[in-house]
């Protein structure tokens, strides 16, 4: 009736195109499944994982390095931690990955085990004329008050007291946080909860009910927002602060020392954390002790089924993780992640010994 002829013509073409696409996909899938079932026999040649986006660059680098060594491919889909957890619960993948660890209760109900695979850090960035990277010092209380909205101007006496040598403007503080759910937000809010519990009352999560500020999408979005607005403050993954030449701040750690963000600081946090006391390694590496420790640090976790189905696949997967722990350090550092310290790896290996197939341990793989 109303529709123009041109539109109807386009639509029928569209229908044809979609139909062709569906046929092609089904055809390919059929071929694909035939190929897979043919080559599956002794061991899987592909390890399938899904989950967190934060460690994706590292996992994909490790995957391609590992494939170059022995032809075993890693197919890691960065669909988000939530998706990764669902996928491993449904056993559609060999492993799931999550930035926020599951609680021990959650692990038990779903028959999963969890261990950390790499460590990264969060950094606060600001946009203040005349203040360059590393100039501004912040304490946990100051950060919490800024994000609670109780400190609203940059020349607040409390900020000045910590930074006597800086001339701070009376600009209003524009708080920027993530608009999307994110492991970085979980690490940052865990830090506030741990280091300034009396001020930060919002709690910790992949997204929280922020008292003030605006949300920007992704770490790159936060970095862009902070760049655009004078007087703003935001938190991003370490990589974004270094790559975009942002004005990062120093932070006071648990020992009372002001430190600059660095891989050594993240490693110190991972090394000084008391992993033994955390069941399921469910640990945020925030506000850990140590003079060089960077306070906003977090591990990214791997989730696997405690009862495995296929000995060859399980062995293959754990062998890959073992390789990543032992040989993946250089690749990790090149991408601004920190590998898990050896003493933690020992604990992880002990955990692997509880992973079984009908009662028989899978690790050490034969």
């Amino acid at each position, binding site marked *: 009736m*109303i*529709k*123009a002829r041109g*539109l109807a013509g386009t639509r029928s073409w569209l229908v044809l195109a979609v139909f062709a696409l569906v046929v092609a996909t089904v055809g390919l899938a059929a071929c694909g499944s035939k190929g897979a079932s043919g080559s599956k026999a002794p061991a899987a040649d592909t390890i399938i994982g899904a989950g967190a*986006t934060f460690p994706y660059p590292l996992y994909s680098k490790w995957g391609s390095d590992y494939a170059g060594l022995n032809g075993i491919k890693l197919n890691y889909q960065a*669909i*988000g*931690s*939530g*998706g990764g*957890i669902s996928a491993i619960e449904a056993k559609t993948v060999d492993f799931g990955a*999550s*930035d*926020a660890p*599951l609680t021990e209760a959650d692990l038990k109900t779903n028959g999963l085990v969890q261990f950390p695979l790499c460590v990264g850090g969060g950094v606060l960035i600001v946009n203040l004329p005349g203040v360059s990277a590393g100039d501004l010092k912040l304490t946990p209380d100051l950060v919490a008050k800024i994000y609670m909205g109780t400190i609203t101007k940059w020349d607040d006496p409390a900020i000045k007291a910590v930074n006597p040598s800086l001339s701070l403007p009376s600009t*209003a503080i*524009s708080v920027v946080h993530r*608009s*999307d*759910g*994110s*492991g970085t937000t979980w690490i940052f809010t865990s830090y506030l909860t741990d280091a300034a519990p009396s001020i930060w009352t*919002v*709690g*910790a*999560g*992949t*997204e*929280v*009910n*922020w008292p003030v*500020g*605006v*949300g*920007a*999408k992704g770490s790159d*979005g936060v970095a*862009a*927002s902070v760049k*655009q*607005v004078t007087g703003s403050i935001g938190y991003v993954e370490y990589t974004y602060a270094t790559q975009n030449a942002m004005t990062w701040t120093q932070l006071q750690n648990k020992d009372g020392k002001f430190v600059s963000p660095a891989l050594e600081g993240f490693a110190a946090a991972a090394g000084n954390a008391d992993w033994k006391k955390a069941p399921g390694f469910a640990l945020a590496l925030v506000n850990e002790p140590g003079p060089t420790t960077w306070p906003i640090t977090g591990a990214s976790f791997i989730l696997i089924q405690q009862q495995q189905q296929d000995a060859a696949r399980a062995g293959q997967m754990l062998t890959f993780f073992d390789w990543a722990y032992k040989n993946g350090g250089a690749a990790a550092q090149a991408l601004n992640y920190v590998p898990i310290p050896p003493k933690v790896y020992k604990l992880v290996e002990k955990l692997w010994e509880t992973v079984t197939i009908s009662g028989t341990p899978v690790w050490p793989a034969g």
Partner: protein
Amino acid sequence: MNAPGVPAGPPGAMKVLRRIRHRRYADPAFRAFTTACGMVVALLMAAMFAVLIIDSWPSIKKFGVGFLWSKAWDTTAGHYGAVTALYGTFYTTVIAMVLAVPLALVIALLLVELAPPWLSRIVGTAIELLAAVPSIVFGLWGFLVLVPIMSNHVEPWIQSTFLGKLWLFQGPPMGLGFLTAGLVLALMVLPFITAVARDVLRMVPQVVKEAGYGMGSTTWEVTRKVSLRYGLSGIVGAFFLGLGRALGETMAVAFLIGQTYDMQKSLFGTGNTITSTLANTFAEATDSLQRSALIELGLVLFVITGVFQLLAHLWLRRARRRMGGRA
């Protein structure tokens, strides 16, 4: 095909067979095929609805109907409600429609009534191209280009005029928020409304318009009293098409809305929409109740869009009947 000398039987039989096949089975088979294809859509809708209800059941059970008027969205405490998302969804949609509908009508009138054919063709193609731009591009463009312009120039300028005293223009000019999101939404729905409105106006019979001109009407009068009247039902259809798109638009809004869970009044304020909350938080929603609440938000949007479609249909039918009665 057949070599000479081969008995004529087989081709003759084939012919008969083909005829039978054609008469007896072709039409019913074709009907069955098309019916099956049509049913796929209906089944998909039903299945979608069922899955939405099943997956949001933990949240429905926990919050009941109160979900619809609870302002809470607190992941750490585990309280969820749809009000802030509904508020943001309608706020941005209203801004988009207020900006896009008049502009679309004016452009459609220009294309049909006033512009020389060459200009009409160029502008028409440009509008169609605009419709083909993926929404993620609008989102990134909005975030990287429009937001700095809004926060550095437009919003401070508005606040410096007398408008700055109104509650509509309070708050820090961050660039992110309802106004920017609504503006980009308006650009996104503009081509859809324009295209349909143009086709509607084109279908106004020339004789009717000429009758108007013959009575000494100006172009404006003919447009207002003849063309727009005549095409009213179609234009309402265009309006609802744009509305449906604005309500459901996701990526661009997810970038621009600021994603805060409150109900700020100012145009410069930030908030969230149903789709932006889904796009922004679903991937990292690790808590099962949060996932369930998010899916319930999706269910709410599903129902809202359905209701709007229904209203549009009813309105169109009524309008058509009324016009038919008059003719």
